[in-house]
C-alpha cells in the first residue's frame, strides 16, 4: 500500500511517510505524530527493501504494529507504547516493546516472538498457534484464551506479574505460565475462572491458586519436580530476556492446572 496523496493528516496525525534513517540492515523510523497506516506502510517498505531490524521510536498508540508481518529473522523494536493489536496474525518476526502494550497482543499469532518489558492489556495471545510471548509485568483479562497447538508445535506465554479473570479460558494447547513476581496490581495472582472450558495444554502458576478460582473442567495440583524441571528451558530463556534469576523464580512451589479430559462437552448432546 502507498500512503494517500489527497489528505496529509488523519485525526490530526500525519499520513505521510514518516522520517526514517537507514544504517545497513537497521531502519529507524520516527513515529511521533504519525498515523498508524503510515507507520505500518513504512515498516513493510523497510522490510521489503532488506532491513532486518526496524526500530520504531516515539511510538504512542499506533495500532497493528507487526500485524500480519511474515518472515523469520525480522526484528521490530518498539520504543514507547504501541496501540491495540500488536503482532496480530504475525508469522515469524520478533517484536520487542520497551513500554506497556495494550489489548490483543499476539492475537491469532502463527509464529514468532513478542517481548514486552511493561504490562499488557486484555486478550493476550488469543488463539495463538505457535511462537512465544514474554511479558515482564501484568496481563489483563482473558490472557492465553483459546491458545492452541498445531501438529508438532505449541505456543508459550510467560507473564511475570499477575493476571485477571479467564486466564487460559478455552485453552486447547500450549503452555501458559504466570509468575506473580513484579506486579503493580493489588489482589491475588490470578482472577477467577482460570482454565474454564480448557481442553488442552497446561497452565503453571507460581505459588498456589484456589480450586474455586478455576474452571470445572480442570484439575489443580502442585507441580511435581519433574514438571517444574520441564519448565526450566522456557523459564531460563525468560530470565535471560529480563535479567532475572532462574533460581529465584523456581524457589517456590508451582501449581499445575490441566484439563481433566480433551472432550469437555462430549456428553452434552443427544440426537433425535
Amino acid at each position, binding site marked *: 500500500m502507498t500512503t494517500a496523496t489527497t489528505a496529509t493528516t488523519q485525526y490530526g496525525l500525519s499520513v505521510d511517510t514518516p522520517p526514517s534513517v537507514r544504517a545497513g540492515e537497521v531502519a529507524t523510523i520516527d513515529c511521533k505524530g504519525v498515523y498508524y497506516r503510515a507507520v505500518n506502510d513504512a515498516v513493510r517498505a523497510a522490510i521489503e527493501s532488506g532491513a532486518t531490524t526496524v526500530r520504531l521510536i516515539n511510538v504512542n498508540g499506533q495500532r497493528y504494529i507487526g500485524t*500480519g508481518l511474515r518472515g523469520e529473522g525480522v526484528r521490530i523494536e518498539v520504543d514507547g507504547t504501541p496501540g491495540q493489536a500488536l503482532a496480530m*496474525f504475525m*508469522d515469524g518476526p520478533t517484536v520487542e516493546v520497551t513500554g506497556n502494550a495494550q489489548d490483543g497482543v499476539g492475537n491469532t499469532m502463527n509464529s514468532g516472538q513478542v517481548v514486552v518489558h511493561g504490562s499488557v492489556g486484555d*486478550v493476550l495471545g*488469543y488463539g495463538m498457534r505457535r511462537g512465544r510471548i514474554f511479558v515482564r509485568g501484568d496481563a489483563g483479562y482473558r490472557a492465553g484464551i483459546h491458545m492452541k497447538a*498445531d501438529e508438532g508445535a505449541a505456543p508459550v506465554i510467560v507473564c511475570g506479574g499477575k493476571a485477571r479473570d479467564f486466564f487460559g479460558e*478455552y485453552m*486447547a494447547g500450549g503452555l501458559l505460565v504466570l509468575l506473580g513476581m513484579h506486579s503493580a496490581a493489588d489482589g491475588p495472582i490470578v482472577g477467577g475462572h482460570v482454565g474454564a472450558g480448557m*481442553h488442552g495444554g497446561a497452565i503453571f502458576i507460581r505459588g498456589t491458586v484456589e480450586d474455586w478460582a478455576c474452571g470445572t473442567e480442570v484439575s489443580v495440583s502442585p507441580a511435581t519436580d519433574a514438571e517444574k524441571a520441564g519448565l526450566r528451558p522456557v523459564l531460563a530463556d525468560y530470565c535471560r530476556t529480563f535479567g532475572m534469576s532462574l533460581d529465584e523464580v523456581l524457589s517456590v512451589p508451582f501449581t499445575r492446572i490441566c484439563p481433566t479430559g480433551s472432550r469437555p462437552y462430549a456428553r452434552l*448432546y443427544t440426537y433425535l
Partner: protein
Amino acid sequence: MATTMAQPEFRVRIDDVRCQQCGRCVQQCGWGVYTFDERPMPDHSACRACHRCVTYCPAQAITIEQNPLAYRDNPSWTPALRRAAWRQSETGGVLLTGMGNDRPYLNVFDHLVLDACQVTNPSIDPLREPMELRTYLGSKPDAVGVEAGPDGFKLKKDRSFAAGIRLDTPILFAPMSYGSVSLNVHKALALAARRLGILMNTGEGGLHADLYPFEDNVIVQVASGRFGVDSDYLNRGAAVEIKIGQGAKPGIGGHLPGEKADQDIATTRMIPQGSDAISPAPHHDIYSIEDLRQLIFSIKETTGYKPVGVKIAAVHNVAAIASGIVRAGADYVYIDGFRGGTGAAPQVIRDHVGIPLEIAVAVVDQRLRDEGIRQRASIIAAGSIRSSADLAKAIALGADAVAVGSAALIALGCHLCQGCHTGSCSWGLTTHKSELTRRLDPEWGAERLVNLVSAWSHELQEVLGALGVNAVESLRGSRERLRSVGLDAQTCEIIGVKPAGL
C-alpha cells in the same frame, strides 16, 4: 425395559415381488437401516427418509412412509414434542439437529408478489436485449468526482474506490466449513464458483490446499475459533468474512468433535489430529463495535486492504447492529435469517431464536438509507433462499446479492433429512467416511451447481424484463415493485411494502 419409547418416524416398505435381493440398499444406506438375510430387512428406527436407497434401488422396490402409528390427538403435544421429551428423559442431553428451522412460521416471501409492466411502460425481453446481472459488492464512494485530463474528463479515483468483489450473478455459495461438509463438497462449490464467476465461502474450517488454485473465487472466513486462520490464509481469499453469527444458531458457538478431526481436517484447521475444535459463542476480542472495527482493520492491514465483510444472524435489533457494523468499516453485511441451515445446532436454538430474513433485510436496508450510509457497504441476504423468486424478492427488499447453502446442498443430493450432525450422510455430503464421501464426484456436483445457479439467473432476468428494468441494480431496494398478499398491516409497514391493490 424398552430401550426407548420414541417410536420410528418412518416405515421402510420393500415390495417383495419387485425386490431382486441384490443388496444395493444395504450398501447405499449410511444410517445402517438394512441388514441382509436372504432379503433386506429394514430397522425403521434408523431411517431418516433421505431416499438414498429409494433412488438407487434398481427394482424401484422401496418406498418410505410416515409411520402411521396413532397418537392420542393433542394439537399442543405433537408427536414430535413427545418424542423429544422421551429422548431427553433417556439421555439428559441437549437435542442436536441439522439443516434449517422446520417449524411452520409465517413465510414472508410466500406472501410477497412482484410487479410487471403493462401497457404504459414496456417490458423487456431478456432473450434479445441486454440484461445486466453483474454485481459488485463492497464499499462505494460517498460521491464521485471527475477531473479534466488531456483525454477529456475521467472519474477521479482515490482511496475510497475499494477493489470490490465482482459477481457475474448476484448469488454466492454460503459458508459451509470443511469439517461440516466433505472436501468433495468444497471442490464442487469451488469449481462451480469459478465457472459461474461467483464466490464460494470456506466457512470457519480453513482452506484445504486442494482449493488454493480457486482462491480468486473464495471468501475466507474468520470465526471465533480462528481455525486455519493465518496471514497466508487471509491473503489467499478474494475477500475475508468475519463470522459473528449464523441464522441457525444465533448467539451460540459450535464444536467439531475430536473424532471428526481426521488428519486432513486437522491440518486444514491447524489443530492436532483428534482434538476438539471448539468455536466459542463470542469472539473473545470483540465485545463492542469498536472491537469489531479493530478486527476488520487488523485484517485489512494484513491483506493490503482487501474487502472485509461481517456475517450476523438476523435478530431483533438487526438494523442497529448492521449500522454499527457498517460504521466499523465492513465492506458488506451478511444477514442470515432464522431459516438458515447448519451442520449441527441445538434444536431449541435453531427453531426458536432469530427473525425472518425478509424482515431483517428490509429494515437493515432502510436503516442504512435513513442514516445515509447505505453506499458504504453491500448487503448479502441468506437463510433459506429457495428459488429465483426468493432471490428477486430479497433484492427488491434491499439485498445486493444472496447466498445459498441449503439450495446448493440440495443440488448435490441433500434431501433435508436433518441428519448432518450424525456424520453418516448417505449422500456423502456431511460426512468424512471415505466410503460415503466418494459418492460425490466434484465434477458432477459442479455441473449441477452451475445448472441451478444458471437457471435461477435466467429466471431473474425474466423477472427483471417483466419489471421493465435492464439491470439487477435497478431492482435493489425497490420495494415499490413488491406487494403483499395476506401480511398484516404492521408487517407491511415494517418492511415498507404496500398491500396488493394499493
